[in-house]
């Protein structure tokens, strides 16, 4: 493998060229209508460098990430197709990695996934045949060595930029940088973090990752959430596992009168993006909101993240789709 390999995606090109990347989470859809996906994606076109197509987030089924990725690409947005280990064994995951690449996914994000108990089918059998480290390594072997985990050869290798997730905010905090190191060793080229409300903790994680030499080997994108109310923030803290909402952050939203909490949540997200742009080693932000993407679009605008850099060459990957505009 050449050390000067050409970027495989627009996202990889932006990160390798030292620009600050902006990605966003697609709203998952609950039907068989591709137009729904294309409409959400169309709203993000030109505003983000890539959009994540989640894989049954919070263990609730939705339109598949592979299909969503294809429709997102049709709408002119580069997809990041997520695959989780919860719902498939190693055979199905490899099949979907190839399928995603064939459908135009230039980025994949590989994770273990929430347990089925977090979702609306808690009676389901969780799979967890392999873990996220294994899936990262398998993706790397498919791509770089052209073979399945079994060793059997592929006829054509997938080409994608390989991502992982990390949560600097969950215990054991001291082990989290070492776990990132393991993910890099397994094959991760970029990571997107859990939602960041605790900037000092994030800064400490980046410092320790830098000390381990990881920031020369992996790009870190930090997730920023646009909260709409103090209630939503309390829900994140109390109900969603692995999210750290410090008391002062929650208090800030609670102090705002009910009619102004959404505005305060937006200001908090805006300040967080600003702080992350100044944080050494942070390569980009990943923006998340629920119930509509208007707040994300406003955040990108108000944070001065427009216009997004245009990379020559990656449009051709999208224009292979007949519907791409």
């Amino acid at each position: 493998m050449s050390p000067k390999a050409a970027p495989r995606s627009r996202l990889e090109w932006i990160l390798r060229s030292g620009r600050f990347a902006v990605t966003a989470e697609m709203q998952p859809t609950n039907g068989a209508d591709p137009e729904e996906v294309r409409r959400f994606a169309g709203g993000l076109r030109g505003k983000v460098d890539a959009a994540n197509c989640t894989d049954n987030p919070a263990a609730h089924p939705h339109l598949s990430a592979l299909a969503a990725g294809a429709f997102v690409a049709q709408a002119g947005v580069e997809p990041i197709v997520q695959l989780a280990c919860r719902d498939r064994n190693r055979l199905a995951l490899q099949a979907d990695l190839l399928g995603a690449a064939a459908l135009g996914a230039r980025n994949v994000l590989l994770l273990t996934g929430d347990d089925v108990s977090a979702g609306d089918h808690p009676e389901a059998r969780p799979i967890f045949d392999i873990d996220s480290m294994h899936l990262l390594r398998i993706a790397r072997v498919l791509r770089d060595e052209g073979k399945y985990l079994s060793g059997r050869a592929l006829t054509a290798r997938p080409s994608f930029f390989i991502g992982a997730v990390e949560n600097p905010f969950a215990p054991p905090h001291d082990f989290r940088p070492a776990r990132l190191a393991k993910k890099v060793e397994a094959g991760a080229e970029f990571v997107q973090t859990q939602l960041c409300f605790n900037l000092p903790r994030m800064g400490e994680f980046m410092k320790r990752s830098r000390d381990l030499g990881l920031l020369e080997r992996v790009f870190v994108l930090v997730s920023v959430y646009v909260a709409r109310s103090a209630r939503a923030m309390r829900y994140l803290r109390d109900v969603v596992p692995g999210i750290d909402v410090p008391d002062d952050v929650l208090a800030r939203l609670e102090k705002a009168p009910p009619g102004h909490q959404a505005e305060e949540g937006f200001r908090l997200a805006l300040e967080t993006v600003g702080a992350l742009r100044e944080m050494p080693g942070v390569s980009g932000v990943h923006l998340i909101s629920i119930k509509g993407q208007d707040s994300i679009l406003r955040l990108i605008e108000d944070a001065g993240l427009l216009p997004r850099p245009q990379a020559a060459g990656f449009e051709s990957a999208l224009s292979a789709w007949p519907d791409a505009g």
Partner: protein
Amino acid sequence: MNVFHAALVAIEKAVKIPLFGCRMCGQCILHETGLVCPMNCPKNLRNGPCGGVLVDGHCEVRPQMRCVWVRAYEGSLRLPLWKDHIEHLQPPVDWRLQGTSSWANLASGRDRQVPAGWAADAGAAADGSEAPSETGGRA
């Protein structure tokens, strides 16, 4: 399974289940996980904690239980010899070994057999030079 192996399995269960909550995966990595059995993780994680560990260090799936990997990390710090082994990348589980004796598999080398595609040289080790040109860039 011959009589000798059946006896070995019985002894291994008698020793390791009370001591470590062993799940008899047949490919023991206890000394690399702070002497805490990783197969008690509801997600079968072999390489460290998931992102859902609760603020108090408990498991998101079984909140009454402390996270297996929080305990494993604490345990690894107390080990005199294998402290850093928790950082080793563990290969996928071979589910065919479930219920067999890890001692027999250690002696035969069966527990170290990995699929042909599990390449030791894949991943970041192969491209240390393929580094980000610069970090913390600006748009």
